[in-house]
C-alpha cells in the first residue's frame, strides 16, 4: 500500500552517499608531506574561515632551528600546558640535547625524546590530522618529517558532576553522568574496577563525528547481545548525533510502540548495576543520558534506590509503585466507566456524593475528564519548558484554574479534580520518567474506550495492551520477563526485592553466561557466643 510512496520519497530526498560527500567541506585524503609549508597551506585551505583555529609556527632549538607548526582549536585545548610543555621545551630546553647525532627515524625520535606528552599519535594522513584538530588535539608538524604529531591536549569547559536531574534518590550516590564521555567512563570505571569492563568506541554522524561507546562486562554479558548492539550502531547513517535519543530511535526493537525498549539513565550506579547483570551500556558523547539494553518493563518500575534501602522497605515501595502504576493508568478510565455505565458498582453513599458533586456540571464525565487531563498535561509541559523564575507563576495559575475556579464555576466536578490529582501524583511516583510517558499517553485511548464501552472497553484495552507488551522484545529479551516467560528465580527481584544475600543469581535472560552472582546463602547468622567474653549469663 505504501510501497509507491516509499519509492517516490526515496527518489526525491535520499541521495546515495559517496566518498567525497562523506568527507565533505574540502577535506581530502592527502598524506602529510615533508614540506611544512605545503602542509600548512593545505590545512589553512581546509580551515578557511574558521576563526577559532589557531596556527602557530616557530623554530625549535634543535637541528639548527627546525621549523615547527602547531594547529589547534582555541578553547578546546589546555593552552597553559601547551606553552609550558611544548613550546617552551622546544624553543629553550631542547637546546641542551646533543642534536648533532644523525637520526635515522626523526619522527620516532621526536615522539620518544623530545615531545613531552603522555599521549602522542603519529599520523600519516592529513585527514586524520584535521579530525584530530577537530576533536581537540593539538597537531604538530615538523619541517622535514612526513608525520603529524597529534597531542592529547583536550581541555574544555565542562559541567561538573552533579546530582542527576531525573532520577533522585534519598539514599545512594549523588553523582550523575555529564556531557563529557571521558568523565562518564571514569564514573563507571570507579565503580567497576575490573579489566573485564570493556568499552568499544566508534564515531557516528558524518558531520558531528560523535563518539559512541559500547560498554559491557566480558564474561557476564551475552556476546550475541553485544554483537547485535554493535551491528545496529554500525548501521546508523546520519549526519549528526546530538543526544542518545537519536541512537535510541535507531536501535530500538519496536519503533512504533509507546513503550521504551531502551532505558535511558543518568545514573552511573544504575549503569554499573546493569552491567553486573549482563546489560550493555551505550555512552554517547555530549549527553548525560546513557542507554541500557536490553531492558524489560519491570525494570522500568525499579529505581536504583530499591537496592540500597533495606529489603522490607524496598519491597514495600515496589508494592506502592505497582499500585500507583495502576492508578496512573486506570483511575480516569475507571471513573468514567463506572460513573457513566456501572453506577450499581459503587456504594450508595459514594454514588450519591459523586452525583451531588456532578450536579450542574454541563459536560459528560468523559469530556470533563479529557478537559482536566489535557489541562494537566499542558500545565506539566509548561512547567518543564518555562524558565525557573516563571515556573512559580504557572503552578499558581494551574492550582487556581484547575483546583478552584473551574470547580466553583461549575465547569468540572470536585470528584474529577481529585481523580486528576491522584493520577498526576501517581504518575510522578514512577521511577522512570520515560516509562511514565507511555502511561500518560495510554491513559487517553483507555479513557475513550471507557466512555464508549464502559468497563468492557477498559478491559478490552487492557487485554490489547497486555498482548502488545507480550509481543515486545528488547534485544531478544521478552519485554515482560521475568513474568512471561516466567522465571521463578528472577521473581525475587520483581514484586518484592528480596534480601541481597538471597539473590545469588543474575537475571536469567541477560546474565545466564555466569549465573552465580555470589556465594550461596550468606544470610548473616549471629555467632553462637557473643564476641567479647562468652560468660554473659
Amino acid at each position, binding site marked *: 500500500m505504501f510501497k509507491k510512496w516509499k519509492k517516490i520519497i526515496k527518489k526525491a530526498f535520499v541521495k546515495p552517499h559517496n566518498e567525497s560527500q562523506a568527507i565533505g567541506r574540502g577535506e581530502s585524503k592527502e598524506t602529510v608531506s615533508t614540506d611544512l609549508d605545503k602542509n600548512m597551506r593545505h590545512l589553512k585551505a581546509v580551515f578557511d574561515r574558521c576563526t577559532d583555529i589557531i596556527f602557530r609556527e616557530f623554530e625549535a632549538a634543535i637541528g639548527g632551528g627546525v621549523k615547527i607548526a602547531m594547529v589547534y582549536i582555541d578553547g578546546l585545548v589546555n593552552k597553559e600546558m601547551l606553552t609550558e610543555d611544548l613550546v617552551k621545551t622546544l624553543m629553550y630546553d631542547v637546546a641542551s640535547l646533543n642534536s648533532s647525532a644523525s637520526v635515522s627515524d626523526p619522527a620516532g625520535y621526536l615522539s620518544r625524546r623530545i615531545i613531552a606528552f603522555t599521549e602522542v599519535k603519529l599520523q600519516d594522513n592529513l585527514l586524520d590530522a584535521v579530525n584530530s584538530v577537530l576533536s581537540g588535539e593539538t597537531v604538530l608538524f615538523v619541517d622535514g618529517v612526513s608525520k603529524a604529531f597529534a597531542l592529547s591536549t583536550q581541555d574544555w569547559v565542562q559541567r561538573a558532576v552533579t546530582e542527576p536531574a531525573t532520577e533522585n534518590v534519598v539514599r545512594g550516590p549523588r553523582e550523575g553522568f555529564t556531557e563529557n564521555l571521558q568523565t562518564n567512563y571514569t564514573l563507571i570505571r570507579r565503580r567497576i574496577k575490573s579489566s573485564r569492563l570493556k568499552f568499544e568506541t566508534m564515531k557516528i554522524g558524518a558531520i558531528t563525528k560523535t563518539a559512541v561507546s559500547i560498554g559491557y562486562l566480558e564474561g557476564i554479558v551475552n556476546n550475541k547481545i553485544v554483537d547485535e548492539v554493535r551491528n545496529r550502531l554500525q548501521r546508523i547513517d546520519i549526519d549528526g548525533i546530538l543526544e542518545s535519543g537519536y541512537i535510541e530511535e535507531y536501535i530500538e526493537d519496536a519503533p512504533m510502540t509507546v513503550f521504551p525498549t531502551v532505558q535511558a539513565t543518568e545514573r552511573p550506579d544504575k549503569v554499573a548495576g546493569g552491567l553486573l547483570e549482563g546489560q550493555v551500556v551505550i555512552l554517547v558523547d555530549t549527553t548525560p543520558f546513557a542507554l541500557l539494553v536490553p531492558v524489560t518493563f519491570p525494570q522500568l518500575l525499579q529505581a536504583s534506590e530499591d537496592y540500597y534501602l533495606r529489603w522490607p522497605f524496598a519491597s514495600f515501595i515496589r508494592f506502592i509503585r505497582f499500585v500507583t502504576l495502576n492508578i496512573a493508568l486506570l483511575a480516569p478510565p475507571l471513573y468514567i466507566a463506572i460513573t457513566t455505565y456501572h*453506577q450499581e458498582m459503587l456504594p450508595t453513599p459514594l454514588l450519591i456524593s459523586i452525583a*451531588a458533586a456532578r*450536579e450542574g456540571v454541563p459536560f459528560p464525565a468523559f469530556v470533563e475528564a479529557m478537559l482536566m487531563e489535557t489541562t494537566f498535561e499542558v500545565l506539566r509541559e509548561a512547567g518543564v519548558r518555562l524558565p525557573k523564575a516563571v515556573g512559580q507563576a504557572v503552578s499558581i495559575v494551574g492550582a487556581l484554574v484547575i483546583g478552584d475556579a473551574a470547580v466553583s464555576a461549575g465547569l468540572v466536578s470536585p470528584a474529577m479534580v481529585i481523580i486528576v490529582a491522584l493520577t498526576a501524583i501517581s504518575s510522578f511516583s514512577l521511577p522512570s520518567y520515560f516509562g511514565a510517558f507511555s502511561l500518560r499517553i495510554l491513559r487517553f485511548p483507555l479513557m475513550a474506550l471507557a466512555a464508549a464501552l464502559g468497563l468492557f472497553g477498559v478491559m478490552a484495552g487492557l487485554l490489547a495492551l497486555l498482548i502488545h507488551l507480550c509481543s515486545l522484545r528488547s534485544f531478544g529479551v521478552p519485554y515482560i520477563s521475568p513474568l512471561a516467560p516466567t522465571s521463578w528465580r528472577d521473581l525475587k527481584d520483581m514484586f518484592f526485592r528480596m534480601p541481597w544475600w538471597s539473590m545469588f543469581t543474575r537475571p536469567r535472560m541477560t546474565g545466564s553466561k555466569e549465573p552465580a552472582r555470589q556465594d550461596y546463602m550468606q544470610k548473616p547468622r549471629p555467632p553462637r557466643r557473643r564476641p567479647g567474653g562468652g560468660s554473659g549469663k
Partner: protein
Amino acid sequence: MKKKVIAFILVLSVSLCPGCWSRREVEDLAIVTAIGIDRMILDGKEKSKLSVLVARPSQLGGQQAKATAETNADWLVSEVGDTLYEAMRKIYRRSPRNLRIYHNEMVIIGEDSARAGVQDILDYLQRHKDIRLRTWMFVSRGDAGDAMKVLPEFENMLSEEISEILVKSTPAISDTLAVDLRRFSDALVTPGWDAVLPVIRTINPREATGRKREEKEAGQTIVLEGLALFRKNRLAGFMAPEEVTGFLYIIGETQRGAITLEHKSGNGSPSQIAVLISQASSEIKPVFKEGRLEMEIKIDAEGDVVEVQGDTAVGSPDVIKEMNREFSQKVKSIAEKSLETAQKKFKSDVFGFGKIVHQKYPDYWREVEQDWYEIYPEMPVTVKVDAKIRRTSIIADPFQIR
C-alpha cells in the same frame, strides 16, 4: 499491511458503532433508596401501590447543599397500578430523571399487603435484575407508604436511618432480626420453615421537630419493633420484642441483649438485676417419644451482670449459683413465651422445626409434609437452658453508701 488496516478499522468500529450505548451520567439518575409496597382496593379492583424514596443528591453531600436545604433529602412518590411495574412506569411520568433501583436498600411491605400474601411481590423482586438479594425487607404496621412519610431524626434519608437502626443497633439488643431478600425468599421456598420480617412502626413520641415535609404528619418517628411472623406466604401476626428475644435464643441468633432477673436474697425486698447476654447458642433436636415427634431445644447462654438494683451481693459464689438458676429459668420462660406465640397462637413455624425434621428424618417428613401445619401446633416442645453468669463487670457487690 492491508490486513492490519482492516483489523484497525474493525476494532475502531467496535468502539464507535455502539456509540456510548446506554450511557447514563450520574446526575441524570434518580437513585431509589427505599420501596414501599401496599395493596389497595380501587373501584372494587385490587391494585398495587408503589411508593419510592428517591435520593436528592443536591441536598446530600457537599457544602453548598446544606446551606440551601429547603426541601427534604429524599423525594417520596407513590403511584397506583394494576401491577407494580405499571405503578413504576407511572412514577416515570413524574420523574425528570431515570429511576434506578439497583441502589435500593430496603423493601417495606405494608401490613395489608403482607396479610394478603407476598407471592406476587416476591415475583417482582426476584424477577427484576436490579434488585439485590441484600435488600433489607420489612413489614410496616399500617401502610408502607405512610411509614415512608416519616422524617429521619439523624440521617439525611429515611432509608439510611432505618437500615442503620437495623444493622447497627439491633444486634446490641437482640429484639428483632435483620432479614434480607435472600433469607426471606429462602424461608418462603423452604418447606417447613416460615419467614419472619422485622416490623416498622411509626410512633409519635414528641412534638414536631420543626423540620421539612410539613404536609406530612409532623413529629413522627420510626421504630423497629419485634417481628412479623408469616405462615406460608401470608402475614400471620406480630411478635412483641420481648418474645423475639426468646425466638432468637431458640434459633441461636442472639448476639447481645439484656435480661432482667428478679433475685430475692434473705428477707429483703427482691433486687432487679440486669444481665447482658454475651454469648448464646442453641441446639434443636427432634426426637420420637412413644412414637410421637417431640422437639428438644437446648440453649446455652452466658451473661454479665451490668446493673444491680437492690442489695444482692452478686460477688458471692453462692448468690451466683442462685442467679444462674434464675437466669436459666428466665431464659426458659422467655423462650417458651415465644414458642407459645408462634406455635400456638399464630401456628407459624418460624423456628424451622419442619426443616430440621426434614433433614433428620426425611422419610417421616414425606409422610407428614402435607399436614405439617396440623402437627406443628400440637407438637410438644421441651426447652432446657443452661445459663451462666460469667462476670459482674467492674465492681462485684452493689454500690453501697455507708
